[in-house]
């Protein structure tokens, strides 16, 4: 009996060495370091506080003065053009506020010129996908409108704009937009009340900072 117990103890002692724990210190030295890869969904083209300056050139079509696309030669107003300059600031990564000013003109059928300078406050929602940006803008403001020696100021201006931009570099994006502008004219004598509907195609460049 004593021999059996001694044999069992020796047996347990012998096999205990077979099942010894691993050396943790050696495992840590041999372990490959973990690399924390950035998550793709954390990268945004724009962050709150980002700003951009936008310049653009547009061709503008008068929609409710007669004539037909594209030149509207037979209408009271013909196709015209405008330049645009604006500033926007991102409040969130997808929403920006800003303002822009246009300098536009249209020839009339009587060989005169109608000019307008609207200054508008804009709100822009801009989803993005990879390096593409899709700004959708609503703007409201006031315009100085001139024709012969006549002036209409301040004239209400409302616009809706949508487009696509490609972020070529972190500082520059280029794109095109379509725009619809509504310019009413209201008078104390309501028989003179009128409005202008204008559609524009815009080529723009934006400087981001």
């Amino acid at each position, binding site marked *: 009996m004593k021999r059996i117990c001694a044999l069992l103890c020796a047996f347990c002692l012998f096999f205990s060495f077979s099942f010894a724990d691993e050396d943790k210190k050696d495992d840590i030295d041999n372990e490959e370091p973990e690399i924390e890869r950035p998550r793709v969904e954390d990268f945004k083209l724009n962050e709150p506080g980002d700003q951009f300056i936008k310049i653009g050139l547009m061709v503008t079509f008068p929609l409710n*003065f007669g004539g037909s696309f594209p030149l509207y030669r*037979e209408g*009271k*107003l013909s196709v015209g053009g405008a330049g645009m300059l604006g500033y926007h600031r991102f409040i969130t990564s997808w929403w920006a506020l800003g303002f822009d000013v246009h300098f536009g003109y249209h020839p*009339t*059928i*009587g*060989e*005169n*010129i*109608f000019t307008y300078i609207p200054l508008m406050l804009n709100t822009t929602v801009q989803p993005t996908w990879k390096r593409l940006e899709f700004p959708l803008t609503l703007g409201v403001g*006031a315009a100085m*409108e*001139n*024709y*012969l*020696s*006549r*002036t*209409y*100021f*301040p004239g209400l201006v409302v616009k809706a704009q949508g487009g696509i931009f490609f972020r070529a570099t972190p500082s520059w994006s280029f794109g095109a937009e379509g725009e619809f502008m509504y310019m009413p*004219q209201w*008078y*104390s004598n309501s*028989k*003179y009340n*009128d*409005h*202008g509907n204008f559609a524009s195609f815009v080529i723009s460049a934006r400087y981001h900072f």
Partner: protein
Amino acid sequence: MRTYIRKTFVLFAAFSCFFFLSCNDVIFDEIRNEVKLDDAKVFGDIKSIIRYTLNGEECIFVADGKDILYRSVAGDTVGQKIDWKELPFSSTTVYDLAADAEYLYAFSLSWGEDEDGYNVPITRSVWCSADGSNWEMIFEEPYSDRTAAILFCTNTIKPENRHAYFRIGSETYELSGATKKEELKPFSVEKNSDYICSSEKVDGAASAEQNSFAPRNCTVLNGTVYFSGASAIASNETADTDATHIYYSSGDNVYYSSDGTAWERVDLNCDTILCMATTNDYFYAGTTEGVVHTPWNPEKYGVPSNGNSDFSNNANSALSSYYEIQSILVVNPEEKELDCTIFASLDFEGSTSSSSANMKNIGLWSYYPFRSEWNRE
């Protein structure tokens, strides 16, 4: 605190601009009245549009700075757009025209080079013709820019009231066909009270003691010719009725009288008036900045209303504020405005680079009832 005050001030200044600088002129509605313009056939520096009966046919004449052009306004031709014809004339450039009951008169300049090689007027002359083909010189002298020379006439619709005059310096002559200037008697006119219009002729040229002025225009009331130093003078004579009132302008004021002695004033609230005309329902004034019209005062016959009213056609955009209206003629003033045939001559001051005017618009414009629009003639 300072920042708050500064921001408040800036906001207040910005909003104030909208109130103090606001203008509400009609624009889109006016643009919709515009029409496609014809190519001009009668263009140039047209000083006056003259009535004259040529070979028994009532016509109107213009001098475009080069030639004499005319067209019939007799019978049904009044409301028709017909071609203008050229009247043969021997001199180089015709500057102005006048007419009386029998003769058509032309004031012309001949040109040559000065010692520096510049093209300058050399002589000025007055010619007359009874048939539009044969011209006879009645006056000629070397050109001088120190002495004014003006040809003017009553230009009435009734031929028996037409008289023509020529003033050179302070000497005014009533023209009488082929009678040479040397055989004509000069006369002066005196100021009529505080106004500058008078019918009283005094033999001889004006002297320093006389309360006279240099007439530039004239018209007829009750068979008497009234002279004025004003830029514009007119009467409300029609083919059917004699004039009941005569009018002359000073600035944007129109002075009117029914007897030539007592004058009253209305203010058209426009720019300086250069010419005037009447229709059955409106009083027209061509100004240094476009054309205006005002309805007759409903309580006083023959009296224009104060201020001016909107046009129902494209007159504002055609005879726009970019241009001076040198002369205006209503062919048939007994009709309402929209049934009249009206001619107007446009010019502008300055250069095309400093003005918004278009050289293509300088010349004669017309309104015909059949098309209800103003367009280049």
